[in-house]
């Protein structure tokens, strides 16, 4: 596969908040329909990287981005509609966010803001996404109750359903499991294994074992730079190239 066929291509990305540079010129590619695990300690630029990809970084004042991020060969900073770009990318935040709307409206929010209003279409999308997020059976009888009243694990699956509702081609998960229990985590991981058949997944995680279980390739970021990016077998195997990678995944970092 050549670089041009990568789903997402990042070249020399730099990001600063004010005068403080947090990503120091990183370049890498993400292949179509792979799960890329991103591991690394806090403050290493993982979340900022995701926010650059879907350009929600624009909402933070006083940021400066240089370098390019191409999705399907198109520079995200030059796309004609940033809203269309964001609809291509599903984003799941660390803490579950049930919008203060009904469960149905939570999932129907994105299609509606994209201009879809036919009830039958919306019904179909809502059911499909809730099924994909392994939440349908628990909520199908109370779609009109409030999304914020669900339990934490259910809300996180609702968040995932919402991220899928605009039929993205890329799904970014930012430490999705820090607020939910291990059993729910395993259920969502099964969901992800299913989803990778149709989409590219970026999995930012603090649980190195989660990357090991799911990711095709794993990227280790530290202080705004890529220490190592290789297949998960190599990163978690006997001989990662960088000593820091081995220390980190073995838990003896620092």
């Amino acid at each position: 596969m050549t670089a041009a066929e990568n789903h997402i291509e990042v070249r020399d990305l730099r990001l600063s908040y004010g005068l403080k540079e947090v990503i120091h010129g990183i370049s890498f590619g993400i292949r179509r329909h792979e799960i890329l695990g991103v591991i690394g300690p806090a403050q290493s630029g993982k979340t900022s990287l995701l926010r650059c990809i879907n350009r929600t970084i624009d909402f933070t004042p006083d940021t400066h981005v240089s370098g390019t991020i191409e999705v399907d060969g198109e520079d995200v900073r030059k796309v004609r509609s940033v809203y269309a770009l964001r609809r291509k990318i599903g984003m799941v935040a660390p803490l579950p966010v049930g919008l203060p709307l009904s469960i149905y409206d939570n999932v129907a929010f994105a299609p509606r803001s994209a201009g879809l209003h036919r009830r039958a279409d919306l019904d179909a999308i809502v059911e499909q996404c809730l099924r994909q997020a392994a939440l349908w059976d628990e909520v199908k009888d109370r779609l009109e109750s409030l999304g914020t009243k669900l339990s934490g694990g259910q809300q996180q699956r609702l968040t995932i359903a919402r991220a899928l509702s605009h039929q993205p081609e890329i799904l970014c998960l930012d430490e999705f499991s820090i607020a939910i229990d291990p059993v729910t985590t395993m259920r969502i991981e099964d969901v992800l294994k299913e989803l990778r058949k149709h989409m590219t997944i970026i999995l930012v995680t603090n649980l190195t074992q989660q990357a090991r279980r799911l990711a095709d390739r794993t990227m280790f970021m530290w202080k705004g730079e890529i220490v190592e990016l290789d297949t998960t077998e190599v990163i978690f195997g006997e001989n990662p190239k960088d000593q820091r990678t081995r220390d980190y995944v073995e838990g003896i970092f620092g």
Partner: protein
Amino acid sequence: MSPATAQSRFAETPAVRRKLRQEAIAKWIFCGMAAAMVVPLVLIVGYLVVRAAPSLNLEFLLEVPKRGMTEGGIWPAFVGTLYLVFLSLAVSAPIGILAAVYLNEYAGDNWFNRVINLAVINLAGVPSIVHALFGLGAFVYAARFGYSIISASLTLAIMTLPVIIASTRESLASVPRTFREACWNVGATRWQTIRSVVLPNSISGILTGVILQVSRAAGETAPVMFTGVVFFKAVERGDLFPYYLDEQCMALSMHLYTISTQVPGVKESIPFATAVVLLGLVVIVNATAISLRVYLRSRKKW
């Protein structure tokens, strides 16, 4: 374990006793200060009501002033105040709320928005007498509205605007940022986000802030005295629409001032009854605001 050691393990040490004593003192001081608030309120209301008692009846509210304002009721002033309050809020509430939405949701940190912020803050600190002079110059003379209900209402609107902006911004800011980010992440515009998530969840606070400005607008004397309120205006008893908007009117605050200080021989209970009506109006409005807030809060969704 023997009873002796059990007791010594849980016995109060001198340090703990001192801590508890300080705790008790602190609690009583705070409680006393809070209770002290009630005393002036009860005294004011009680004194007013007792002195006003001979005049307090529906007739007083509906009747017009008689015999050079020394007898009769307060209907023209009461209706005038309603006119001024509703007109001024009809102007300041939409402008204030929309401006606050811009400042809180759209405005970035640049010189233009800093100037707006500075203007809002400073406008809030301007004394009402200065607003009165401004209204006189701007609306009565420059805009040629003359001494009229319009001029007075606009002056009150300018006066209440910064406070409405501040209270609206506060309620908008109380909606968690994560809600907005979740909407942006799925490709919603700022306006879609504001309409479907931010406003429905801040509307109770916004409305409360607006309604509380009613009491300010109703109570101010100087701004309306300079721009459109007169000593006396002859109207029909109980007439709901006695004024045209380009006319001058009477108002409760101004009427209270007049009959208390300018008119000799006013029946003793009338000024007090006027004050009770003014106070009652404010209390009713505030009670409405509170019950509205309770109702909307009960529907709050997180």
